[in-house]
């Protein structure tokens, strides 16, 4: 992205944000639901992007954290507690569990770590399904209320969409700050070369745990929005397949790119809807599209853009060098 001038980047950002605010005003209930879902899934995928994309720690448990956040919100708000309190509980709970789940990552890496987190994902699902006293098991929790924000009810789809969008905005700013801070640099160091990072005084242990805890906490935030969005939750949506979906969003969008989760979630949530006109074939077409994309660009969609910009930069630089040397050659 470094190639675009700053003003152009700001203009693009303003247009995108304005578009996300204005355009959905004419959307029907279903369109707003899908778009809200996109915002919620983007938050969850940003968390995973932090853990996986930046810090390089494979996790197949992000869906479980969305589930933990969703159940925390559902249980608390059905008891009449405010969503903001439930959000706080979801964040603290997921942060703590994420921190603990980080410990195996200090010993195992890559696909071994994937298995450890996969086991946790299954464990969380079993708790959601079997602990009836807490989660109402397979019957699920219904009539989850939507909150009032500063006195405004968000029962209707449009205000609730704005709540999701606003939350996405706040999370984006926080994550942007985080990855530009020395922590973000330490996360990248952890991903690229943990041994060298250690020799430069970077406490890789603490940063690994932090990467898990913060990424998981964002999963919890997404969950705390998911429950009032659907207003009914049961264990099924938080099965392992959600973790895999979130993983796919991060990879397709471009792991380690700030905007990767936005693009990835858009494709994972919206593309199946757009392909619906093909009727029975849409899931197959979707699968083929994903395979083709990853063959063409293993670093995801933003990887393509990044490559294009890097090539352009090299061309400009060499053109500049050529111009300079011809100037020097001239008397």
């Amino acid at each position, binding site marked *: 992205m470094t190639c675009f001038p700053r003003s152009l980047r700001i203009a693009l950002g303003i247009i995108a944000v304005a578009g996300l605010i204005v355009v959905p005003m004419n959307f029907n209930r279903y369109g707003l639901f899908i778009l809200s879902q996109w915002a919620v899934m983007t938050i969850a995928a940003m968390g995973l992007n932090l853990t996986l994309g930046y810090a390089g720690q494979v996790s197949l448990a992000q869906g479980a954290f969305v589930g933990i956040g969703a159940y925390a919100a559902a249980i608390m708000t059905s008891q009449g507690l405010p969503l903001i309190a439930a959000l706080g509980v979801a964040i603290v709970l997921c942060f703590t569990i994420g921190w603990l789940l980080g410990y195996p990552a200090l010993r195992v890496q890559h696909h071994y770590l994937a298995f450890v987190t996969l086991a946790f994902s299954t464990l969380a699902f079993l708790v959601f399904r079997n602990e009836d006293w807490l989660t109402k098991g397979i019957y699920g929790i219904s009539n989850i209320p939507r909150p009032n924000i500063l006195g405004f009810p968000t029962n209707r789809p449009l205000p609730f969409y704005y709540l999701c969008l606003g939350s996405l905005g706040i999370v984006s700013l926080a994550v942007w700050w985080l990855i530009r801070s020395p922590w973000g640099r*330490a996360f990248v160091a952890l991903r690229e070369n943990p041994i060298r990072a250690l020799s430069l005084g970077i*406490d890789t242990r603490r940063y690994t745990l932090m990467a898990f805890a913060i990424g998981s906490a964002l999963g919890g935030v997404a969950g705390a929005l998911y429950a009032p969005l659907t207003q009914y939750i049961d264990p099924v949506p938080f099965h392992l397949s959600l973790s895999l979906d979130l993983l796919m969003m991060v990879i397709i969008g471009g792991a380690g790119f700030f905007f990767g989760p936005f693009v990835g979630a858009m494709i994972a949530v919206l593309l199946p809807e757009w392909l619906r006109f093909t009727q029975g074939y849409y899931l197959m077409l979707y699968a083929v599209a994903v395979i083709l994309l990853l063959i063409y660009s293993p670093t995801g969609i933003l990887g393509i853009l990044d490559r294009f910009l890097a090539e352009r930069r090299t061309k400009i630089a060499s053109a500049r060098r050529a111009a300079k040397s011809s100037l020097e050659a001239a008397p």
Partner: protein
Amino acid sequence: MTAVLEVSNIRKSFGGITAVDGVSFDVQEGEILGLIGPNGCGKSTLFNCILGQLTPNGGEVKVDGKVVTGLRPSELNRLGVSRTFQLLQVFPKLSVRENLILAGQEHQGSMLSRLFGPSDAGLTEAADQMIGFFKLDHLATEPAGGLSYGQQKLLDAAMAFMGGPRLVLLDEPAGGVNLTMLADLRERLAAINREKRATFVVIEHNMEFVMSLCSRVLVMAEGKVLAMGRPDQVCANPAVIEAYLGH
């Protein structure tokens, strides 16, 4: 003069192979000690034991008189012990400046101040000075992965100096570096040694480089200390000639 580094009777074996077999030496403040020996004689393993990357089977390491055996590499680094690796270890996707900021950022403030403080940890100026010192000025914003091998090697060395270390262990700094750049590197290392009173231990196969840079040389063979002394003494030692230098 005080010993910055004291190594006593370090032993490390892998299965049935004893890679380092009771090595003892010390390094005085401001000294540049060369560490030479044939491939596989245990030089890098010794480095890894000193720096906490490997846990020695026996022996003790002291830095400034304090026992540091068993400390993690990151803790040791924050005590002022820094290193480079035999193979290139820069972070290719970060820019040259970012690499240097990364190398210095953990040496100041707390975890929290690094989260809420400025994104460069206040190190841009220090990084740019280091960039200037190693003559990498025109490359500051380039991703490190795009640099030539020799330039990356310079960056690698520069990173080891960012935290203002007291003791630096350099593992083959001259490997694969062309002659012009080698002279540059030697001159830079000598300058840091003079100006900052930094103490070095250097593993190197390039004899000319070692002999001209180091004040003392330690020769290892088969995990043991074969000889130690001034470069000219070591070169004249028949056992060293037999084991390493060749006739």
